[in-house]
């Protein structure tokens, strides 16, 4: 069954004010287009969950969409800090921002507990750290079998996850390659899943290489075909990270007026990702395009 829709309709249908939202992708395949659509639709009071809030949550926070951030590393990767995140956390501008903080391992384990229908997930994490004192969803538990111990994290089950992949069929079976991050478990942990892809493909293409499937149609509610939907992050094999944009954001985001102007120009001022891409221009996209390097095909065998 085709679940193909537009990002506008997927967000309008899938995301409500007050929801907990996980935009997945660890540095790779970050759902920027979905984030911008959430800003355009003026969703409010969201709990934004992401291991690395990255620029996209800085933009959502600056636009006033967030009441809470659940995270494990809030920085601009390779560049510095997230000015809007800090302004909200330190000074309550434009909204107060509650923080729920983990380590990467802790947050991923919590998502895994959500994805696995477990009351908690154990990990050898947080040991010797001050973090558990500041988060009630992290607790030390003793081993029932010997005198060892671990830390446990409560499950994270987002209302909505947006996950991206390079390609999927119209029913939502998705192939992803490169860094997989937490895409699969974020999708499995969430109630509603919006899948956005660089390319649509046939079900036959998916079935030709089932090991490459990261999420299946059973878990997907909406499929959106949104080329360049991860710019300025990247999609392995399609385009590289637009580092200029990451560096520029550090400057723009330090100034509230410049943030407003940027949102007006690049988010409110365009209707969808296609218009955003047109505005970026051909030169900039060509500069981000890698050369080809194909994996050697595998022989799955045609059995009788």
């Amino acid at each position: 069954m085709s679940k193909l829709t537009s990002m506008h309709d997927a967000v309008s249908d899938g995301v409500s004010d007050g929801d907990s939202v996980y935009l997945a992708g660890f540095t790779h395949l970050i759902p920027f287009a979905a984030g911008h659509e959430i800003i355009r639709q003026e969703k409010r009071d969201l709990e934004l969950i992401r291991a690395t809030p990255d620029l996209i949550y800085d933009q959502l926070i600056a636009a006033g969409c967030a009441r809470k951030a659940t995270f494990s590393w809030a920085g601009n990767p390779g560049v510095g800090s997230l000015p809007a995140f800090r302004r909200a956390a330190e000074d309550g501008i434009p909204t107060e921002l509650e923080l729920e903080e983990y380590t990467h391992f802790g947050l991923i384990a919590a998502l895994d507990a959500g994805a696995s229908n477990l009351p908690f997930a154990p990990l050898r994490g947080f040991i010797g750290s001050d973090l558990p004192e500041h988060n009630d969803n992290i607790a030390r538990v003793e081993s029932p079998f010997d005198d060892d111990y671990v830390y446990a994290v409560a499950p994270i089950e987002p209302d909505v996850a947006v996950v991206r992949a390079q390609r999927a069929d119209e029913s939502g079976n998705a192939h992803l390659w490169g860094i997989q991050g937490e895409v699969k478990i974020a999708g499995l942990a969430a109630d509603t899943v919006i899948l956005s892809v660089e390319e649509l493909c046939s079900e036959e293409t998916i079935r030709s290489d089932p090991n490459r499937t990261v999420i299946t149609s059973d878990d997907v509610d909406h499929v959106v075909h949104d080329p360049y939907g991860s710019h300025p992050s990247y999609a392995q094999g399609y385009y590289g990270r637009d580092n200029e944009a990451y560096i520029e954001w550090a400057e723009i985001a330090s100034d509230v007026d410049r943030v407003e102007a940027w949102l007006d120009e690049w988010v409110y001022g365009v209707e969808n990702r296609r218009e955003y891409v047109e505005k970026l221009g051909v030169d900039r996209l060509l500069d981000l395009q890698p050369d080809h390097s194909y994996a050697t095909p595998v022989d799955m065998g045609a059995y009788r």
Partner: protein
Amino acid sequence: MNYTKSELMVVAAARELENDDSVLVGIGKPNLACNVAKRTHAPDLQMVYESGTIGSNPSSPPLSIGDPVLASGAVSIEPMRNNFNYQLQAGRLDVGFLGGAQIDKNGNINSTVIGDYDDPDVRLPGSGGACEIACHVGRTLMITPHSARRFPEEVDFITSPGYVDGREGRKELGLSGGPEAVITDLAVCRFDERGEMYVAALHPNATREEVRAETGWEIEFADDLETTPEPKEEELRLIREDLDPDEMYTDQAE
């Protein structure tokens, strides 16, 4: 041959790595150090990144720990959950690089907040993978400028454990491994049998007075205090021509 402090820091860190090590690499100077080691004395060095890439062989300096150059040509790519479970938690990694705003006498690192957690003077990025790297690798390395602000006697917040309140304290928590070396722009510091940081080697032209002035406690010096060996021509050539030609992560001498 002329060289800068940052070039010396990269080379000193590279020399901490051994040929059969598997190392959890960070962005910037740690990445340069690992690549210098791999192209000189440690060709079999296995580079693993927090993003799950194993055996990365980057064709250009990665801009983040999830850069596509770390994925293309890697030996394997693991989902995050697997990478933290099986590589890090299970103790498969020998060395890890850590960064942070503060490191204290016992090698504990703060990358979370300056000041009070609930009302911070400065909100820093937080742990990311750092806490569990500090818990589970055999040897942690840190490359950081030497300043009193960065080297307090006690950190404001323990993000990542060093020797906690001493080697015994770390052991009681069930942790092995621990901080191996802190490479600054003045010195190479190590940790004594109590788990306390001391100066093992001074960089050429650096003085004890400078180190004392830039450290937040009465740091001790090794009886057999060494001078950090200068970078070799080949190491400098690798940094300047191959690894960091645009001086993104190092200042370079003419």
